[in-house]
């Protein structure tokens, strides 16, 4: 019998699995905090979680509610400041960065600033925060998003955080550090990556219960779909137990 789980729980588990061998990860607010905590407890106790306002290597015993709160450096190795953390990323010492967004395009550019025109917005969103820095400076970025046609679109209203911009080599031309860029997109329907040549988004695996057609239907741009698409495993009983009883027992997020 399959255990029941929510789409959010599934995304957390898939994101946590991506951190099995990671050494360092820049953790933003929300789902990345849960994924990092789950990965640390289940797969990779040595994972170093880095928070933008200065927490490096926290125990993540209690789930943080903000990227600057005490839980981001409780029993940590280091409590420093934002310049030090961001400069560590700028020097190339942070492997993975997690990002969210209201909109994403085929090159992995993300919008968290405005829907509609900037000076007369339809909806004002939170803005960059540390996202632009994470997307600029970490080696690989992983976006976590709900898979909807209005979110996966050909052109985002505002490029808050750089993906591959508009072409292969676009990042390097712009001056962003060489060899960096979007790596994976975790959604409630699928796991996606990027084509090596075109740098456009590519379907890698579908989530349990979802179909390739459903993924295509919910993507507002032409997605690269390889002949064979892998199947993601559903959350295991172990993953769900640790997630619910140890990572977020207070049900802050799940």
């Amino acid at each position: 019998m399959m255990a029941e789980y929510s789409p959010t729980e599934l995304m957390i588990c898939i994101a946590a699995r991506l951190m099995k061998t990671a050494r360092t990860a820049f953790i933003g607010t929300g789902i990345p905090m849960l994924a990092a905590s789950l990965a640390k407890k289940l797969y990779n106790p040595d994972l170093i979680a880095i928070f933008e306002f200065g927490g490096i290597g926290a125990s993540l015993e209690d789930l943080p509610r903000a990227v600057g709160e005490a839980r981001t450096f409780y029993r940590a190795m280091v409590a420093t400041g934002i310049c030090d953390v961001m400069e560590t990323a700028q020097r190339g010492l942070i492997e993975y960065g997690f990002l969210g967004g209201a909109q994403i395009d085929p090159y992995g550019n993300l919008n968290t600033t405005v829907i509609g025109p900037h000076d007369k917005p339809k909806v004002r969103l939170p803005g960059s925060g540390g996202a632009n820095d994470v997307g600029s400076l970490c080696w690989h970025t992983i976006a976590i998003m709900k898979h909807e046609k209005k979110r996966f679109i050909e052109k985002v209203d505002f490029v808050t955080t750089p993906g591959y911009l508009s072409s292969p080599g676009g990042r390097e031309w712009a001056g962003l550090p060489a060899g960096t860029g979007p790596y994976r997109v975790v959604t409630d329907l699928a796991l996606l990556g990027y084509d090596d040549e075109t740098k456009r988004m590519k379907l890698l695996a579908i989530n349990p219960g979802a179909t390739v057609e459903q993924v295509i239907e919910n993507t507002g741009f032409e997605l690269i779909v390889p002949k064979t698409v892998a199947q993601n495993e559903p959350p295991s009983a172990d993953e769900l137990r640790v997630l619910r009883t140890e990572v977020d027992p207070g049900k802050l997020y799940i």
Partner: protein
Amino acid sequence: MEIIESGHEELLQPPDVEGFRRWLKENKSPALTDKVMDEREAVKRFIKDGDYLGVELYGTVRCPMSVVREVVRQGKKKLRLAGQGLLEIDFPVAAGLVESMDLTYVGYEVLGLSNILRRATESGKVKLVEWSNAAMAWRFKAAAMGVPFIPVRSMLGTDTLTYSSAKVVKDPFTGIHVTLLPALILDVGIIHVHRADKYGNAQIDGISGFAFEMARASKRLIISTEELISTEEIQRYPERTVIPWFLVDAVVVAPFGSHPGEMCYCYERDQEHLVEFLKAAETEETTQQYLRKYVYGPKTHQAYLDLIGRDRLEALKRANKGR
């Protein structure tokens, strides 16, 4: 240096490093004078209409909320602000005191978005210039260094840069494109710390956010502190002084000064109060009711703490896990 691209937005505060030097020379003194005063006096003496203010760290974490409430009570107008968009931004915005902002983030993370800033920006009342978090901290760093700009590798290729006042140039040494961030010199910086002496020597526990840089990027600097300690204590641990006395203009003693935010190792954030605030923030009318009750109502920080209630504050203290 070849300019590749320029952000469209005007500079809300020009990086006048020459003016900053002259100002500091004329106005800062190494004299050991007692700078302890209450919120009312500090705000009255050092903040004026039209000033560009910066507040550290951010609305729910080690934030000088008692000073922010006093700024709103005194109705300082036409303010320009820097920083994170939480309570410290929402209060003056809701009170109609803010003209423009250099901003990176306007949300409450796990608690969701702020309707106050949404209303103000969607109606065009407050002008926003976009930056990233690191960019804002590095702009303070440039000012702290006393240089007009700092080259960095964030914001490149994005609309975040287009809607900022940064520039992209070709670096003369390597030929790569780098972002030049203009130094951000504050008219007034406001920082909440764990401990300070009467002269303004300040210690911070836990993460330091951007306090080090912002303190050095400020013309006027108001420190609020959980605890006033002796100068002898400061001198026993001089390496712990992150903000030296000669930068500081006012020392405000404000226990629970970060409420409803948290102070690491001291007290937890008041989650219930934050939820109450965000609920109130949903409409203009309830926002004004909140301000009347919690900001305009209590005329002093002590009156505010009395309103919140000793039991509740003690519970926030007990809930803290310590080290």
